[in-house]
Every structure is written in structure tokens, then in C-alpha cells.
């Protein structure tokens, strides 16, 4: 750009192209493997050009993975988590930024600390809580000697069990807080002067202003929740009705059954089905995705 460097330019192009191929080749291999019959896919060396059995394999994988039901579940769960996260993040950031009360900073820190407690490190007790989501309250009441007849609320094998534990969000709250802090005070004052209360101000001024934030948060959270694996694996035992798409990968993984060669073509077709929605979202909404990534993590 500033100077002429033909050799280095060539090296740069070469390196970038090689890296591009290396980074994308797994996608190609998944696709190629999903398009051959059982015999061809197990050949060594494997074919590098797609075969003619693609739709057949996809149909088999779709049926074997029960994807009719499972895709619907995944869409419900990912959609639910995404909407839940956005709503809850916006609400709590609004409370923290636009109201002045003593516990405000305490609340902020309580939300902040959850960043350090990812699901994987508290997985066993979280599972225990999911068996009865009201148990914490029962035990606290019990501590004070009050016995309240709370019902049992079992979250296992339910959409609420798949969705609720994933909704709480520190990063989303920060994103909104950061954004609310940049909204000029004059806007609030003007709204108040015109007689707008907090709810109206939130719904009619802040929400329309934060559309960009919402889009960014939504894309990244959708991909994140679609890709959740460990939690659904635990909460769902009723595979027929509540399994999510990502979970099916474990079922379809080729088992080493007495020297029988694994059914790779169907497994890769299933993998293709599972990875397509998040990849499409990132490709088509990638501007939002990148923005969401960078602003939530920093």
C-alpha cells in the first residue's frame, strides 16, 4: 500500500489462500462424505469430489435423527433463549442505569459474578435444582421454620428446563448498560417533561434506539443457544419428544460395534443438518454477528 513489495505480496496471497483452504476444507469433507454411499465413503483414500447419494443420505439421517421433531425443538429452545436473554438483559440494565437505589451496585456485581460461573463448573448441582426449581425457596423457608406448601416444579424434560437456566445473561446486561449510558440525559429529561413515565420511556424511546444492539445480541445468542450441548444432554431423558438437534450428534456418532465400520456418510449428513442453521445465521447476519461478538466480550 505504501511501498512496492512484490515478493511479500505473493507470500501474503499464498499464505492467505492456503489458510482459507485449510480452514474451509473440513466443511467440504463433511459435504463430500455426506454425498457418497456407505462403501465409497470408507475407501482409503476417500473421494474428494461429491458423489450422487447426497439426498438419499440426508433423508436417512433426517429420519434416523428424528429431525422432524428435533429441529422444531431446537428452534423453540434457541428462539426462547434468545428472546428471553434480550428481554431480561434490557429490563435489568434499565433498572440498573435509570433508577437510583442503594442496592443498585450490589445487583450489578451479582450479575457480573455470574460470568465466572459457567454452566460447566456448576453442572451437577444445577441439574439437581432443575429436578425441582422451587427447592431453593423451600429450603430457605425451611431454614426459618416456615412451611409453605410450594408445589414441585420439575424442569427435566420440558422446554422451560431447556430454556430458563440458559436465559440469565451477564454479557447481554453489560451490552445494554453500556448502550444506555451513552443515551443523552437530555432525551430522558425531554421525555419526562412531556409526561412520560419510566415504562413508556423504556418502550417508546430506549427500545427503538437499541435495535442495533438487539440485532447483534440476537444473532450471537441464537448461535450460542443452538450450539448448547451439555445442558440439553442432561435435562432431556425423553429423547423422543425433547431432544435438541445438537444432542442428536451423540446418538448418530458411529459406534465401534464389533469391528463393524462406522456409517460415516449418514453421520456426516446429520452433522450437516445440525450445523447448517448456525452457519447460515452467521453468513447472512455476519455484520451483526461480528458486532455482537466484539461488543459483548469487551
Amino acid at each position, binding site marked *: 500500500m505504501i*511501498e512496492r513489495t512484490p515478493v511479500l*505480496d505473493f507470500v501474503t496471497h499464498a499464505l*492467505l489462500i492456503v*489458510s482459507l483452504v485449510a*480452514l*474451509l*476444507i*473440513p466443511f467440504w*469433507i*463433511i459435504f463430500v462424505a455426506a454425498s457418497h454411499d456407505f462403501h465409497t465413503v*470408507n475407501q*482409503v483414500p*476417500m473421494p474428494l469430489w461429491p458423489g450422487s447419494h447426497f439426498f438419499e443420505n440426508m433423508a436417512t439421517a433426517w429420519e434416523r435423527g428424528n429431525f422432524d421433531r428435533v429441529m422444531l425443538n431446537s428452534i423453540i429452545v434457541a428462539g426462547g433463549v434468545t428472546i428471553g436473554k434480550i428481554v*431480561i438483559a434490557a*429490563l*435489568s440494565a434499565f*433498572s*440498573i442505569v*435509570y*433508577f*437510583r437505589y442503594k442496592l443498585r451496585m450490589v445487583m450489578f456485581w451479582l*450479575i457480573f459474578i*455470574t460470568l*465466572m*460461573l*459457567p454452566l*460447566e*463448573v456448576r453442572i*451437577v*448441582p*444445577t441439574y*439437581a*435444582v432443575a429436578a425441582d426449581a422451587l427447592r431453593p425457596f423451600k429450603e430457605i423457608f425451611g431454614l426459618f421454620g416456615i412451611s409453605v406448601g410450594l408445589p414441585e416444579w420439575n424442569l427435566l424434560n420440558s422446554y422451560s428446563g431447556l430454556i*430458563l437456566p440458559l*436465559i*440469565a445473561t451477564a454479557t447481554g*446486561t453489560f451490552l445494554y448498560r453500556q448502550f444506555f*449510558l451513552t443515551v443523552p440525559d437530555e432525551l*430522558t*429529561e425531554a421525555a419526562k417533561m412531556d409526561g412520560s413515565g419510566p415504562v413508556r*420511556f423504556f418502550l417508546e424511546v430506549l427500545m427503538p434506539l437499541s435495535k442495533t444492539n438487539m440485532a447483534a445480541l440476537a444473532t450471537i445468542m441464537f448461535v450460542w443457544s443452538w*450450539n448448547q*450441548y*451439555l445442558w440439553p444432554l442432561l435435562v432431556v431423558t425423553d429423547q423422543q419428544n425433547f431432544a435438541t438437534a445438537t444432542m442428536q*450428534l451423540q446418538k448418530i*456418532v458411529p459406534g*465401534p460395534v464389533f469391528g463393524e465400520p*462406522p456409517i*460415516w456418510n449418514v*453421520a456426516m449428513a446429520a*452433522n450437516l443438518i*445440525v*450445523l447448517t442453521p448456525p*452457519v447460515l445465521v*452467521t*453468513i447472512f447476519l455476519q455484520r451483526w454477528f*461480528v458486532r455482537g*461478538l*466484539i461488543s459483548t*466480550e469487551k
Partner: protein
Amino acid sequence: MEKRATFSNLWLAAAFIAPQMLLIFVFFYWPSGEALYWAVTLEPPFGGGNQWVGLQNFMTVFEDPKYWNSVRVSLTFAFSATVLSLAIAALLALFVDRRLPGHQVYKFTFFLPYALAAPAVGLAFRFIFSPDAGFVSVINQAFPGLWNPALNGYDAFTLIVLAQSWKMVGYNFIFFLAALQSIPRTISEAGAMDGASVLRRMWDIQLPLITPTLFFLIVINITDSFVDSFGIVDITTSGGPARATELMVYKIYTDGFQGKDYSLAAAQSIVLMVLVIALTFIQFRFVERRVHYR
């Protein structure tokens, strides 16, 4: 930062924050507290309340060579995957930032792997690196038995490191590129005027200026390799062969849900929790304050 104009209806403020608070109480703080409680108690075999055993569970965990094996595997895994993916991502970002013709293409494609779920990455890599079918099996045709992740612990470990790095390269790339693009062009141009070559400018100007991002990414990558790697390991190796890829998270999962030993799993959870908390602290305290060149 404070708002000058605020609202005063505190009931409303409470109502707005209540859903978030309820969720983090039920699903974050209560379980974490319970993990702590389980870690210092033992459930008697014939029912009844848990008995206080102090640090005995931790002792049992720390005396178990299998546990130290999982710690060693986790740390090596975190180190290798982080170094590999950060090095590649930094190199790619530096070269893409040269803005030669066509650089836009890379911006849109390099981060695609990050969109995949960890188990999807795992399944793809399991096939690609399978010893008797797939892409890499050619090696075994030329040198029989050279590569077999199902039998050889080192091969299996390499496999999960490659899978994790592949997944993270695109993510790191985005952050590096964003950091590079925020460096004023004038600095590089001044370097060029002083006769610094392209590579010299990368090494002496651009890399030092993106160290804050580098440190941030180191922490994120290590945390991710502790936490999100579960999906990769579960699909590719299931912790084997001979525990060569048994990461801490995977061991907690197997001890807790297959071994049904909640106390031991809880004690291990607490150790992992402390590690993650320490990392987050480093990120926010040390990194944010110390590394400022701008």
C-alpha cells in the same frame, strides 16, 4: 458513570430487575452454594442428612492420580490449543490487514468454524482424522499404524487440540483484526517513512499495539478450552484412550453423572470454579490495567 435524569419509582425498578435476579439466584448462586456444601459433606450410604467431613473430599480428589492426570491434560490442552490458534489467528490478521486486493473475502470466511457447535466440530474431526476412513487415513496406507487416535493417547490428544484450535481461530482472528484496524494508519506510515519494512512494522509496531487484545484473548481461549471443550471430547474420544484426553470438565461429568459421586464431583467443580474465577480476575484486574500502550 451516573445518569443525571433518573426515575424514582423504586417498585418499578425492583420489578424490572426481579426476573434476572430470580434466574441467577435459582440457577447460579444456589447451585454454586450447593456445590460448596456437597464438597464438604458426604451423603451416608443409607440415606439421612449429609455429614460434615471438612476437606476430606478434597483430600480424596487430590490424592487421586487420575485427578492429577485430568489437571495435566487440561492444562496442556489449554496451553497447546491457545498458542496454536492465537499464533495462526495473529498471523492471518496481520496479513489480511495489509489490505491487498481480495482481503474482504477472508474477513467473511475465516470465522465460519466458530459458528459450529463443539460436538459438530468433534464429529467432523473424528471422521477427517479417523485411522481407517476419511481424509488422514492415507497416512496409514503409506505407513501402517502411524496414526490411530483410538489407540494412541498422543494422537487422540493432538486430535482434540486441532479441533479446538480450528474452532477458535476464526474467533481470535476477528478480535485481532478489529484491534489492528483501530491502530491509526499514520503510525504505520511513519514507520514506513523511517524505512521500516512491512514485516518490521508488524513485529515492532502492530504486534505491540495489539497486546491488550492478545492478553484478553489468552484468557478467553483458556477459559473456553476448560469449559466448552466438553462437546469435542465427548464426541471424539470420550476421554480415552486410557484417560489421555480426560479433561477436568469431562471427569466432573463422568464422576457426577455416571459414577453418581456428587461429593467428589462437587469438590472438583469447586477447584475448576476457583480456576475460572482466577482467570476472570486476571482478565479484569491485571490485563485491563497493566497493558496499556495507548
